[in-house]
């Protein structure tokens, strides 16, 4: 190499030229590196815009045909070309609220235990295990839902529930296993890890002085936790709940497998229903006709809009809490 280079270099003044070629060879390389990474960053921008554009453009047929009434009408009749999203929106809301009703107390309880009571090593180990729950694929939750949860609900949970609360509209009618209730329970297991791990982080970030001040005034540890630590951390905990809710709304497979896939609006939690994500999963490949497809894509747009708003709120709440704790 050197032998080949030297004759060329000898013909020109060696010192400054070598430096200049070095600089010249560098600057394009630096620019190239910049451009390559910029292209990657730009493509992220492009992909996200594409997602939005596709949803918006491909649902235009349905949006123009039905307008806002799409969200409030109940009929879902592909044969007659009538599409109303209410049963799916209702099912999505009911299952998610039910999931939150179970997962929030459980998740926050576990987070309090892990942040306030458990020794750090135990807490880390248990959190590690709970976070593994979040890694279990949703189709496996669905599998367990069909073959384990549904029989358990059918044999051991629903009969006593009905004998005690059967008079309320929430628990009326025959129970066939697949229902809002089953979907809500499966969802609650799926979102608990998010609530636990985010809430625990938030609780840990509450300054020690807050706890010490309260304990010094004679409060018990629980009073300290409940009246001092929780109010301090409440925004971040709301954030974790919104995050979990966004997960629950967009969850597809597990819900599809246990909700019964029946487009109806029923007050009873024991009845089968349908969710937005489930109807897209089930009917998208079979959708014949532009209007049908367009209506399903509009459902996707609705789902996207709602999760977008929830995620934004969650981020804002978690961010403001961690800002507080950094300052103090």
């Amino acid at each position, binding site marked *: 190499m050197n032998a080949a280079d030297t004759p060329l270099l000898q013909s020109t003044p060696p010192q400054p030229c070598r430096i200049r070629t070095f600089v010249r060879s560098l600057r394009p390389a*630096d620019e190239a590196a910049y451009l390559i990474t910029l292209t990657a*960053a730009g493509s992220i921008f492009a992909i996200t815009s594409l997602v939005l554009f596709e949803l918006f453009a491909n649902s235009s047929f349905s949006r123009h045909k039905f307008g806002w009434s799409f969200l409030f009408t109940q009929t879902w009749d592909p044969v007659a070309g009538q599409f109303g999203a209410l049963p799916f929106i209702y099912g999505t809301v009911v299952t998610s609220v039910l999931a939150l009703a179970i997962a929030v107390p*459980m998740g926050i*309880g576990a987070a309090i235990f892990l942040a306030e009571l458990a020794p750090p090593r135990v807490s880390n180990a248990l959190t*590690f295990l709970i976070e593994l729950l979040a890694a279990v*694929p949703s189709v496996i939750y669905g*599998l367990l839902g069909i073959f384990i949860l549904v029989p358990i609900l059918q044999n051991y949970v629903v009969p006593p529930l009905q004998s005690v609360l059967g008079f309320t509209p929430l628990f009326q009618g025959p129970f066939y296993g697949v229902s809002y209730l089953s979907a809500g329970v499966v969802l609650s297991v799926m979102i608990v890890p998010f609530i636990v791990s985010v809430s625990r982080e938030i609780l840990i970030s509450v300054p020690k002085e807050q706890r010490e001040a309260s304990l010094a005034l004679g409060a018990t540890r629980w009073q300290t936790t409940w009246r001092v630590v929780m109010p301090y951390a409440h925004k971040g905990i709301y954030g974790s709940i919104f995050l979990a809710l966004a997960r629950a709304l967009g969850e597809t497979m597990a819900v599809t497998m246990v909700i019964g896939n029946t487009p109806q609006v029923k007050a009873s939690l024991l009845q089968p229903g349908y969710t937005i994500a489930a109807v897209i999963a089930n009917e998208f490949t079979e959708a014949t006709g532009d209007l049908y497809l367009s209506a399903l894509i509009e459902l996707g747009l609705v789902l996207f809009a709602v999760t977008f708003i929830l995620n934004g709120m969650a981020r804002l709440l978690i961010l403001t809490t961690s800002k507080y704790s950094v300052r103090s």
Partner: protein
Amino acid sequence: MNHTARKKISNVVMFALTGICTLVTVGILFFILGYLVWNGARALSWSFFTQLPAPVGEVGGGMANAILGSAKVLLVATLIGVPIGFLGGVYLSEYGGVGFSFIVRYMTDLLNGVPSIVIGIVVYGFIVLRQHHFSTIAGGVALGIMMIPIAVRSTEEFLHAIPQSLREAGMALGAAKWQVVATIVVPAAIRGIMTGMLLDLARVAGETAPLLFTALNNQFWSPGWTHPTATLPVMIFAYAISPYEDWHRQAWAAGFVLLTLVLSVNLVARLVLAKSQPIHRG
């Protein structure tokens, strides 16, 4: 006195309740693991890994095509998600200005929040409709898009954790920016970045919803890259909702295999991450 006693009792009772919450949550994990191992390992046989699915009514067969299909789809996903995510993360951490970086970060968060089924719809419209058929490529693109946000975020975070003084030392020695990034900063963070990518891959490996109308399903081998292909998660779904007893057995076996793969990647990656954390903080 009475008041104090009540205080103490409520203290014990409430913390006991939180302990129970923790126990139940952790218990669910062990229940899931135990049940899948119990049911799945029993259903698992050598033919599961080597044979094609049996026709309806026949007992036996396996999911060899789905295992290969999943691997192919994940390969395409990695080829799309990892380079874009990695380079995007490098841009945000090392080159980004204020304005465009903010937009890119925002878009990444937005993409991360998109429900997986919606990604399926978009890829269907963009690739499947244009190619006029379902394909391995389309499935891979869908999963690849899902990989990008986490890949970007983990790359950016691990690069951020590298002390500024390392970069300055490189610069002071006369290295160009790209040399500093490529030979000092990235190698220092590479372990974290790689585990982040692995976790990302494990996450999309279990995704079913975006594959339903991109890769679809297939009872046979899928030749090349432009034909519909079976994948493990979609097979689990299809077999679990079928009315056949033997298919349920196969679904358990497939669930067991998938969960073992996903959880072992998670375990290893998290252990590596936990070990490498102090280095990054220093």
